[in-house]
């Protein structure tokens, strides 16, 4: 098989020889950019990056490792659009296994990148199911501000952070109202006061300058310096402060548009209030998460160009901010032109990110339901790969198989939007990942229950 595939390669632009060039051939390739799958496609990766992918032919170095994916599907790794991955090994009643909370004295200054543990079993379980990156947000404690979230990879190594402090997460719906004292109006005043306090500190912050070496301006690619290393803590402040210095300093990059602001809002009227924030604070780089009633105001979200990370299949009036929930929400927002991706909002967000592809498949399934609004297969895959990356300005790094992207590639046993398919090979930054987990080890131990010469504890 390998020989046949190699023989079929056309002599085209030669690539420099590299021991770590990998070509995945013969599979159905989906790029993750919204396009439909390509039969008999190829994906070439080298030095941790995608060289080319799709309906391509190129001359490969002689020592290229060729992987025959005939009958398989090949896609970018899944990017979990909203999660708590790496923050919790066990949900509750397990001291030390959960770092999601933030009931301490600080809020906006909290930085989840300090707490991510790449050794947590859910990281491995999701990696083994093709989830290669995740947007990780803290949970809000006493404040509407939950703190700063990160983009991580799920690689089996001790370097999980792709981008630390990528966004500030704030609750401005029902949860925000509760944390602000019982009303949404209170939450909005709190929010504005916090930005005012940040503005005071912001006057003392160093202007952001380009390094002059041709690198992107920080304003274009928001990467936030660690506020704990900031010098603005010594700035004078007025007396009527509600935020600690650390928290106020953490909001300076939000106010200046150097850090994304991820806002949780479900209700249609709450979403409109978030859109209005853009008018009041034009620098804010807002992303909305939730948006169960987004379809009611889809045209306004589309005009605002604010990306949305939505629950895929919420269709219950589970709360009074989700009365109009329907599984057609995502499809209707998409049809209106909203940049939608899928997240796990209050839905086993620390553990079950692998379910995103099942959810995406269900959105495709809606195409067959009269009166429902589904999404195309390519769109559905994009909603769990490139779109969440793009929402945080990382579309040029992760989430698709375009040349130059990080080589996060999954070879699936079949259509990945069918939950019955499985990941067979997972690459992160071009490195093939182990797919063994606590669960696979248990399976091996208990596959056969018959009594043997030693107890099960000796089967390992």
């Amino acid at each position, binding site marked *: 098989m390998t020989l046949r595939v190699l023989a079929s390669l056309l002599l085209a632009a030669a690539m420099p020889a590299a021991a770590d060039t990998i070509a995945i051939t013969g599979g159905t390739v989906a790029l993750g950019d919204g396009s439909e799958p390509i039969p008999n496609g190829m994906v070439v990766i080298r030095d941790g990056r995608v060289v080319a992918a799709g309906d391509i032919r190129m001359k490969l170095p002689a020592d290229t490792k060729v992987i025959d994916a005939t009958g398989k599907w090949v896609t970018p790794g899944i990017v979990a659009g909203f999660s708590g991955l790496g923050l919790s090994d*066990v949900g509750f009643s397990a001291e030390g296994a959960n770092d999601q909370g933030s009931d301490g004295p600080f809020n906006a200054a909290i930085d989840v990148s300090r707490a991510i543990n790449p050794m947590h079993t859910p990281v491995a379980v999701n990696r083994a199911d093709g989830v290669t990156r995740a947007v990780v947000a803290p949970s809000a404690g006493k404040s509407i501000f939950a703190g700063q979230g990160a983009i991580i990879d799920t690689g089996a190594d001790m370097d999980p952070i792709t981008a630390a402090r990528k966004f500030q997460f704030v609750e401005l719906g029902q949860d925000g109202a509760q944390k602000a004292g019982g009303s949404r109006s209170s939450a909005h005043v709190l929010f504005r006061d916090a930005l005012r306090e940040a503005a005071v500190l912001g006057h003392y912050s160093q202007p952001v300058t380009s390094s002059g070496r041709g690198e992107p301006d920080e304003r274009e690619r928001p990467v936030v310096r660690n506020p704990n290393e900031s010098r603005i803590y010594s700035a004078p402040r007025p007396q009527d402060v509600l935020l600690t210095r650390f928290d106020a300093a953490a909001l300076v990059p939000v106010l200046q548009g150097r850090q994304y602001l991820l806002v949780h809002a479900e209700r249609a009227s709450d979403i409109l209030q978030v859109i209005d924030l853009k008018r009041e604070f034009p620098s804010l780089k807002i992303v909305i998460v939730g948006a169960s009633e987004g379809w009611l105001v889809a045209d306004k979200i589309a005009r605002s160009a604010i990306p949305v990370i939505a629950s895929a299949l919420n*269709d219950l009036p589970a709360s*009074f901010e989700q009365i109009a929930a329907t599984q057609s929400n995502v499809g209707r927002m998409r049809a209106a032109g909203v940049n939608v991706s899928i997240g796990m909002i209050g839905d086993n967000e620390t553990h079950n990110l692998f379910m995103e592809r099942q959810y995406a*498949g*269900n959105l495709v399934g809606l195409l067959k339901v009269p009166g429902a609004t589904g999404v195309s297969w390519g769109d559905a895959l994009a909603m769990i790969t490139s779109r969440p990356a793009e929402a945080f300005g990382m579309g040029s790094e992760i989430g698709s198989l375009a040349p130059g992207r990080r080589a996060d590639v999954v070879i699936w046993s079949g259509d990945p939007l069918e*939950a019955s398919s499985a990941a067979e090979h997972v690459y992160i930054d071009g490195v093939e990942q182990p797919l063994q987990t606590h669960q696979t080890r248990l*399976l091996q131990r208990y596959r056969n229950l018959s009594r043997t010469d030693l107890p099960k504890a000796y089967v390992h």
Partner: protein
Amino acid sequence: MVSNKALFAAVGSALLVSGCASFEPADKPEAAIHINEDPFPSTYARYPGVLTVIRHATVFTGDGQQINDGTIVFSDGVIRAVGGPDLASPAGAMEIDGTGKFVTPGIIDIHSHLGDYPSPGVSANSDGNEATDPVTPQVWAEHSVWPQDPGFSRALVNGGVTTMQILPGSANLFGGRSVVLKNVPGRTVQEMKFPGAPYGLKMACGENPKRVYGSHDHMPQTRMGNIALARETWAKAVEYKRKWDHYYAKGGDMPERDLAMDTLKGVLEGKILVQNHCYRADEMANMIDMSKEFGYHVTAFHHAVEAYKIADLLRDNDICAVMWADWYGFKMEAYDAIKENIPLVQNAGACTIVHSDDPNYIQRLNQEAAKALADGIRAGIPNLSEAVAWEWLTRNPAKALGILDKTGTLTAGKGADVVLWNGDPFSDYSRPERVWIDGAEMYDAHNPKKRPVSDFELGQPGEGDVK
């Protein structure tokens, strides 16, 4: 024991008020008062249907068979015939072309809290756990069920769920009685109650009871406390039953009525089925021994994430394992969940059931089964197929609910609880197209009028929308 003489008149008159007890005058003290065991009787009545034939569909019968180009005939609420393309259509039948589609029995979710934890999930509606005492066999889930829970309709139209067991929560060792409902909207819960379905008793082991009460400095605080309190309770129940047995046999003073003990007596008599929340293998083994000590049978272990470790024990004790496909790690007792749990239990020859415990996942139980099936096949577990996996969704839960003679398989003579799927139900891309319950069409994807809308949703945004 309190003297019964003083209580006799009061209890007797209370029973008379219920209108169902037989009561003999006091001059015949040897005659027994019989407790009404069904004081909240089902008033369910099937809705009208037409003589219906579906042809050319792939049929999963629910008892392990797959019929390609299959035919099903039902009328007057009952399945008349199931077979291949040669099965004749009766005159006057409405014929449905099932080409490319699938027909299955309606899905049965053996573990749901619809109605007792309804949407919206506000505290005013939170009626699933009577967490005031670890032993509350006297509470009945049906008295918490809000028939207007919008979740029922989603389970029907997206999930093809036609029957559900609604259980109390798991805060308590003895959570109370469950109720089996038809997924037919009713003004009252009585209108939804599955006629003839036995009651269940929700029991719980493990983390939940000890967490809820241990944090209140109240027994149980430990797993040993869980078992001790459960055993004390069963010991009382055995004594309670003995008194009533004696009373029925010999007459004399009527024993004092105890609603909690009535439920446990029903279990000891085999009339009420034990539905036992239990995650860990070692705890299931303890519960099995306890059931033998007091002479009852555990019908099913729910959330049995470690069933695969003792699948042989479950098989040998004729206990069903009720499982998720891939939930794991949300608490310590779910830490050893594996994705092959369901097929491994099937492989051991034990009764295998897929459940939801969730108002969202109840809409995709077919996909949960699909995942478990695929994981099992990948692990090399033999004799698995879609037809076998469908047993996890209908036949086996019907068996564990004591209603297998009435539903759960496509068998002539059973109630016509039927789903027509628009594609293979083991695919993420498939949905119910039409659903019948007792032969009445309760959902038709092509007809917005054949879609239930709860009272709660009337006049709200999205009323009558696809959900």
